[in-house]
């Protein structure tokens, strides 16, 4: 998932960026609203984390402008303003969630996951595919009852397929999910990650559509002997 973080405090911003990256998501971190505006006009984000008090304006105005432009990207407000009236104003402006500083990074990760699932149309954190039992909230996969460990990037890529089971994801889309503006991408990185996921979860978990991209496969349930 590609996330835009808009936070002007460098110490807090770097910790949040590292947390989201550690969860396997791609983060673009901006400290001003004008820079954030440039980002959303060039890249499609799956989530925006938005501070309300920024050096060049109010986050709420930015949010209202995005909603007025029919941008439905999920937004979680991160703010030090704890008043319930501020929260109501934020939600009325089109925010999907509201997290008051100081917050636990684990809580932030959970909220990001919940909002992402809600937007994908499946708020249930438990999904079964073939032999796989997936718990998105706990980031755990069991294959025929045995736990399978995915790295953060493998997890994010796999989650992108599961959240949009019928969608065809191009290599460019997946690179956008995995890498921020300042990262250098190797030409065969996506193929490497797809290969690792297939090795851990089964070859038929992801189908290759030659010349176009990849799609979630339809693995069959193995009947125990």
């Amino acid at each position, binding site marked *: 998932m590609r996330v835009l973080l808009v936070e002007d*405090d460098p*110490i807090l911003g*770097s*910790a949040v960026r590292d*947390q989201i990256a550690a969860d396997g998501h791609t983060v673009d971190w901006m400290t001003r609203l004008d820079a954030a505006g440039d980002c959303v006009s060039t890249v499609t984000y799956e989530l925006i984390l938005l501070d309300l008090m920024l050096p060049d304006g109010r986050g709420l105005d930015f949010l209202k402008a995005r909603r007025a432009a029919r941008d439905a990207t999920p937004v979680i407000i991160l703010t030090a303003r704890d008043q*319930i009236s501020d929260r109501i104003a934020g939600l009325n402006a089109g925010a999907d969630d509201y997290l008051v*500083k100081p917050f636990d*990074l684990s809580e932030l990760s*959970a909220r990001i996951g919940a909002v992402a699932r809600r937007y994908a149309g499946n708020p249930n954190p438990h999904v079964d595919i073939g032999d796989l039992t997936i718990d998105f909230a706990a980031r755990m996969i069991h294959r025929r009852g045995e736990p399978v460990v995915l790295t953060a990037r493998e997890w994010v890529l796999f989650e992108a397929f599961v959240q949009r089971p019928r969608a065809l994801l191009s290599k460019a889309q997946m690179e956008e999910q995995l890498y921020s503006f300042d990262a250098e991408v190797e030409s065969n990185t996506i193929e490497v990650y797809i290969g690792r996921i297939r090795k851990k979860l089964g070859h038929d978990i992801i189908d290759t559509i030659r010349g176009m991209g990849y799609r979630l496969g339809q693995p069959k349930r193995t009947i125990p002997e």
Partner: protein
Amino acid sequence: MISVPRPHSLQRRLGLGLAFGVTLLWLAGTVAAGWILQAEIDKVFDSALQEVTQRILPLAYSEVLNGDPPPAGDGSANRLPSVLPHREQITYIVRDSAGHVLLQSHDADATIFPATPRRGFQTASGLRLYTEAGVQGTLFVTAAEPTRDRRQAVIEAAGTLLWPLVLLLPLSQLGVWALVRYTLRPVLVFQGEIEARGRGDLSPVNATALPAELGPMAGAVNRLIARLQRALDAERGFAASSAHELRTPVAAALAQTQRLIAETPDGPPRDRAHKVEAALRQLSLLSEKLLQLAKAEGGGLLAEEPQDLARVLGFVLDDFRSDPDLAARLHLALPPRGVLLSRMDADAFAILARNLIENASRHGAADRPVHVALTADGLFRVTNDSALVPPDVMRRLKQPFERGATRAAGSGLGLAIAETIAVGAGTSLELMSPIAGQPSGFEARVQLPEIVGPS
């Protein structure tokens, strides 16, 4: 102990003063009327006495000349008999220049008349006398009338004037009371408006119906309220800015510490990072509570427009439900239509509700439900299972940094904040143990102020 004098009532003073004034004026009027009456009665009676005397003089002269002896029967040779028996108001005697009594009326007592007759009016020995002379000063007729009759007439007339006062006094009191009450009604309304203002309500008082004399006073009160409101707004703004400025570095420190924990392998440095995280959480909690207390004491606890507090309560519970264990313990009951409109400020109610729920979940029996209820008539209740809290502890619980017999972590400020908000909004926080109708448990309840319409 300093005794504070009871403030006087303007209405009572005006009522008594006006009634006393009316009575005094009436009495003065009665005295003046009596005095005038006395003079008029004297004039009329004197005229009658003079007329009688002058009428008697020729008759007496004729009688004396004719030398007719007076009829017998009264034992007095020169005493004239009465035609019919009656009490004689005016008596008279006829004397010669030497003072010998020649004739007298039948009830006349010669001894009460002055020995030497002198023309004109005289007053002596309770009698009003008039003497007329005739026949070249050789015959004198003196008529006498007791002054007590005149005095009696004046007293009776004045008494008749005093009688209406018995009816007039209560009537004037009633009239004055009604008039004063009617006149002072805008003042009483103004008084009620000012009394209704407090820490929670600093809206301007309505001065539209006030008399011209009180208009400037209302203007001054409203200017004072506006200044107070600005000062409190500045204080609240400062508290909000302080909250923002304080929370961001705490959030940054906490987030960096949590990243440090995540990136550090097990061992003493990681344990140390955990301790820093715990200290930061404690710092965060305490600063949060102190800022809430500052907000609660800063006023502005009543909103100008009614707020849907049921919706606010939903947001507050959402925060608690991010903890799955707590989410399972929380039971919410809202009014049937899920809406409760009150003039209590939404932020103030959120702080109050958060503190009461926090108190119940932290200090209540672990793994037992916490019931949060908001009724249609505005009663907000938070109840939890617990052992009985002794009465002496209950009395102290609302004081800052007071704690019951609990080992649970907390700031010791939650109930003090809730109490400050409740009182500031014009209501109160009631704490009970056991829960009403149950053998144990703890209950906190607040009757929310100014509920608007059916919910």
